[in-house]
């Protein structure tokens, strides 16, 4: 949603790297949403939930954010190198890991 807006307003030209941009947007969003949902469910039953949620999410979401930045950087540059592939793999692994962890622990988080 925001991404096309940025491309138009800042006159960016994703030269041949459109696939990378879409991939990084999808995988990055998936990772952030997974981690955010899990920790939001944890933080909702604590005192000072607004304060503690960013504290919990921030260190954990740094890997996927850095990877998304790196991959979209490569997307705008239009160069797909070996390190881009390893960043993509990192995002895939992160998403898979946290989807599994979230599925396995979510019932413990939400049960009374």
């Amino acid at each position, binding site marked *: 949603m925001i991404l096309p807006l940025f491309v138009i307003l800042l006159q960016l030209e994703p030269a041949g790297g459109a696939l990378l941009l879409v991939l990084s947007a999808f995988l990055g969003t998936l990772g952030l949403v997974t981690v955010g949902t*899990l*920790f939001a469910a*944890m*933080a909702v*039953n*604590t*005192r*000072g939930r607004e304060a*503690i949620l960013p*504290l*919990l999410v*921030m*260190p*954990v979401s*740094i*890997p996927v954010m*850095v*990877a998304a930045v790196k991959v979209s950087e490569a997307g705008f540059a239009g160069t797909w190198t*070996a*390190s881009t*592939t*390893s*960043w993509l*793999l*990192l995002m895939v*692994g*992160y998403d898979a*890991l*946290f989807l599994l*962890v*979230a599925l396995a*622990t979510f019932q*413990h*988080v939400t*049960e*009374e």
Partner: protein
Amino acid sequence: MKTDALQQPVGGLRPEGATGVERGPRRRLWGTLTLVSMPVLLAMALVYAPEDANQGAAQRIFYIHVPSAWIGFLAFAVVFVGSIAFLATGKRRWDDIAASSAEIGVIFTTAVLVTGPLWGRPVWGVYWTWDPRLTSFLMLWLIYLSYIVLRGYVPEPIRRRSSRRCSASSASSTCRSCTCPLVGGARSTRPSSSWRAATCRCRCSSRSSWAWPRSRSSTCT
């Protein structure tokens, strides 16, 4: 109020049964061993070991720095195992083990983060650099700090009624810690060896921190 919230997770020793075992001669034995081995360690590190050819006296901080990192990794591994065991069995003792181990780990990783810059200043020329290994270590420290804070913030009645909630956080935040070394490896400049480097980072951290400063000091100074 605040101390109440903090005391509960600290209580690794359960009143029933456990105190009788821990308070006896066994505990005194560990204390005596520590008292004897600490001066021996200091003497070996400061007097017996020869001075490093390249780094001089600054290298001696490794005898504190690297073992602290090992103990930190070990403690976090115990948190991971304890949290999963708690989720599987529901026994409160596992949760206590995980919580107390997290505190041990944070203490020792703090020691690593304090001694590291002290060594980095004379050898690299800077106290801190946003290098993958340092950054991921800082993240590791932050994650377990937030884990301890989270446990302090869970209200007392909820924790009594269903202590599962706080440990659910423990299990997931422990899995997160597994991503930390993974990131450190993947962010290194050699993408092909990154995966292998990530998996064996814990084991060979001492050796790589030997190789690392040599290449680093040539670029920095």
